[in-house]
């Protein structure tokens, strides 16, 4: 039945480094978002004409109602953490092939006015502070490229949890 390893016979390993470069299309909806961010430092979402949910990231269709999205709405640069952690375990970043520096705070941020959350860094590495319910504010660069890194991170705001 199957394969029996032969005692005393070691298998060897063959290394292979996969290196690829992709040029992803940002798409019509996300390009609009990043253009607004770059030109005006503004965050925007799309509203479903059916259920009125406001989505970020913007997208062509509301998966719940299956209505095409046509309306852009402004979003606040403040919001609340709906998921929160501090990454301590080092790991290989697939974008560089090297270890990503840790620790770093990360969260799912629901911006005021939005129905959905986005992933981003949180400017804090104390686990007792990076918690669900904390209010946060986007820390937006003054020199912007038109990508998610135009938001450096989200800063914890003072005040009570939601």
């Amino acid at each position, binding site marked *: *039945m*199957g*394969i029996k*390893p032969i005692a005393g016979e*070691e*298998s060897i*390993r063959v290394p*292979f480094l*996969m290196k690829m470069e*992709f040029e*992803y299309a*940002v798409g019509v909806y*996300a390009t609009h978002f990043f253009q607004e961010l770059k030109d005006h430092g503004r965050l925007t979402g799309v509203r479903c004409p059916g259920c009125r949910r406001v*989505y970020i*990231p913007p*997208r062509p269709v509301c*998966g*719940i109602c299956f209505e095409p999205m046509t309306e852009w709405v402004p979003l606040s640069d403040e919001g609340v953490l*709906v*998921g*929160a*952690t*501090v*990454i*301590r*375990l080092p*790991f*290989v*970043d*697939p*974008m560089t*092939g090297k270890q*990503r520096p840790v620790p770093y705070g*990360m*969260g*799912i*941020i*629901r911006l005021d006015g939005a*129905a*959905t*959350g*986005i*992933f*981003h*860094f949180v400017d804090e590495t104390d*686990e007792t502070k*990076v*918690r*669900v*319910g904390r209010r946060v504010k986007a820390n937006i660069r003054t020199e912007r490229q038109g*990508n*998610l*890194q135009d938001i450096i991170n989200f800063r914890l705001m003072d005040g009570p949890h939601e």
Partner: protein
Amino acid sequence: MSQKVAIVATGQTKHTSKRKDVNVRELINEAVSRCLADADLRMDQVDAVLIGNMEPFEGFMFPELWSIEGWGGYLKPSVKINTGGTVGAATTAAAYYYVASGIYDTVLTVGFEKQSDGNSQAAMTAIGEPMWERSVMAGAIGNWSMMASTYIAESGATMEQAAKIAVKARHNGARNPFAHLHMPDLTVDDVMKSDLLAWPVRRLDMCPTSDGAVSMLLCGESVAKRRSSRLAWIRATATAHEQQYMGDSPKRLAVMRAQIAASQRVYKMAGIKNPLKELDVAEIYEPATWAELAMYENLGFCERGQGGKLIDAGVTTMEGELPVNPSGGVLCTNPIGATAMIRVAEAALQVMGKAGAHQVSNVRTALVCSYGGNAWSDAFILSDSPS
């Protein structure tokens, strides 16, 4: 036409962190050979093979075509499925539909992953949407710690309760000869003192990364009855997927929209009204301790916020009212492309009464659920009778 479908046989490798002695083709072959031996079947009696895995973990496009000599696909019809963590269940579901349709009568399913050939956290981080998620994401650990944080905020579940799940899983797994982790002496204290990977997730709260493969034989009603008298019938299956982005679900783990939809659908199809009372065993896909607590609630085993109380009361232990993961679950064994199919195979072993040292007594009805992708889920009800 449509016909009833039964799981007739299963085969697994001994799952482990690094299989240094075999390549992917040879790893798969072990599981398939064991399944055929369990079924007392020759490969040339198999109509088709349904095979699933997650290619980026092996760094292959079409790893199944490279390894075809290992799983008997030569000149047979085969279908390759990839839905991420759920793929073992999605592949089983595909096999179910192919057999139920009457297109094939005798179908082999295969799930495999050789994580040690690649870098799992990196491949997992590449799940992140490139513009919106990838630069922030931190593999499975990052995902589960964020999900757990939401669940804790909603339910008030405690570190001790999570640690009890870790202990239950590792004690169960110690009785399963195929499980990767065997930790019969693990204590709640050990779990709570293990390294903090990303709050609230500690090392012993997480599943391991494993190398392993699993295979099952699914047959139509008439063939199945000829082949074996101990069958696990697929009474119901359902799949539910999600919206596109990881932040779309308002309370990801606390309210798992897809898992609720999939499980409610199979309960309805199988006529189950009170899962805690009517199910005899469940094999669920819990990559982290917190996930299992949340899934108790999402699968309707208890009221919202009561997941922790269920483990406190021992309801889901081997001796409890509804044993969950007698196999040791994902917390003991996680060869990703195989993991969800191992859930199905382990539930089938329970229904067939062939689970050995981790057998739950008098199992007639079992629930299987998977997790993967963007909080996607599949669910199955297995039963010892076709209707």
